[in-house]
């Protein structure tokens, strides 16, 4: 049923050699290009590096190291393999529903809003939040900073072009968020793709920012950082939690992904949960 060639028929020594190669590659990328993956969570990083090796059609991680040291185009492909999550618009519709109920009333009390979407990848979740804020009458008073470490991902997000075939799933998600309009109002369909409506992004600043190596750059009333820190090890998570805390106004809101919890971090006591299931937290200390 499965061709024998499809099964990785490697000897155990190869696994052990990879355990040596991966940290060397990561160190090389850091020293050559400044992108710091040294404190990334090892299991997913290793998978992503293996995928990068395969897509470069190279025999080993060491061979990838050789190429990525010398070839900037290879670095960009490496970043695409190693940093981009596959998400969707209105991922976890329940989160957006609860956000409307619990967070929007708090945000409406502020005359102006600074929002940071940290680790925005291809922008799907940024447009989702922009649509929600538009429907709640908050988009015009919001300045929305969407950041990612990968410049190519930011370019794609800025363009706001998505495959047409994804819209069916996104429409179902949108409807489950208690959306107030029709999802099709928010994009124009072209040949095989859609373009998100331009006014959704008029207050969005797309900027390169690396949570690992860059500092806090403003004070925000809402920080969205969903499913970004899952790629970090515990000590890097701690550092990034510090950065987010330092970037959040008093009473500001922090949103994490479904499987992420403040419980296991030293900043737990600085926040209270507005909704612990949807990971919406308010800074109290």
């Amino acid at each position, binding site marked *: 049923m499965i061709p024998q060639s*499809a099964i990785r028929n490697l000897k155990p020594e190869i696994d052990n050699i990879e355990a040596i190669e991966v940290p060397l590659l990561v160190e090389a990328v850091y020293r050559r290009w400044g992108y710091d993956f040294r404190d990334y*969570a090892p*299991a997913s990083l290793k998978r992503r590096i293996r995928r990068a090796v395969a897509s470069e059609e190279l025999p080993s991680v060491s061979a990838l190291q050789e190429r990525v040291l010398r070839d900037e185009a290879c670095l960009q492909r490496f970043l695409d393999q190693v940093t981009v999550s596959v998400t969707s618009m209105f991922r976890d519709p329940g989160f957006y529903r609860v956000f409307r109920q619990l967070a929007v009333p708090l945000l409406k009390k502020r005359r102006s809003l600074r929002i940071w979407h940290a680790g925005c990848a291809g922008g799907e979740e940024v447009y989702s939040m922009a649509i929600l804020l538009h429907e709640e009458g908050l988009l015009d008073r919001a300045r929305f900073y969407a950041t990612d470490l990968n410049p190519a991902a930011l370019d794609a997000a800025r363009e706001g072009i998505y495959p047409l075939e994804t819209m069916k799933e996104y429409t179902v998600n949108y409807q489950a968020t208690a959306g107030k309009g029709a999802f099709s109002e928010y994009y124009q369909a072209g040949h095989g793709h859609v373009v998100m409506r331009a006014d959704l992004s008029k207050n969005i600043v797309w900027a390169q920012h690396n949570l690992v190596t860059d500092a806090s750059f403003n004070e925000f009333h809402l920080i969205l950082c969903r499913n970004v820190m899952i790629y970090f090890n515990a000590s890097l*998570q701690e550092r990034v939690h510090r950065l987010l805390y330092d970037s959040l106004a008093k009473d500001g809101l922090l949103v994490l992904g479904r499987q992420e919890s403040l419980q296991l971090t030293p900043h737990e006591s600085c926040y209270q949960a507005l909704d612990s299931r949807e990971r919406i937290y308010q800074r109290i200390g």
Partner: protein
Amino acid sequence: MTPHLVVIGASLGGLEALRVLFRELPSDFPAAIVIVQHRAMEESGELAMLLGEAGSLSVGFPLDKERILAGHVYIAPPNYHLLVEEDHFAFSLDAQENHARPSIDVLFESVADACGPSVTGIVLTGTGQDGARGLATIHRRGGLALVQSPREARAPQMPLAALEAVPDARQLTLEEIGQWLFQLRIAESFECGLRNADCGSF
């Protein structure tokens, strides 16, 4: 210390199979059990609930970086890949593998990397071939490979693919897998359990 890990992958028909397996498991089960069950997202809570009813073990979705404990059953939450590193769980939002997220291969391969021989991988009923490559990795790293008998499985494709990838894997009925798990408790330590378990020539 990380407990022995029993990792289970199932797809179509998995829910019923898992209920049979878990009915008999004691609350002092000495290993941790991690399950990837392909499913529609809205069914995920139902899975945790049914398993909770079926056995006496603590069942739930793990959190990122949560430490793995013996006597717990962890279910991969919907729409993430679940991985294991060292003594804790990790997640990723990488693309689907074998048309699935969570994917059995992703879990199994990470477990094989992290825990080597102190792993038992089990592939149950299901369509497709997710789990086959992962089971081969577990086997290659010295872990045990068990496969539900394709004759018994509601959907035999996944067990057949696993057996093709791991010809040395042991084919067992659900009842036999259940007995095998039960023996883990009787054994004084897990290592003893592995040696004494009547699983033929691993």
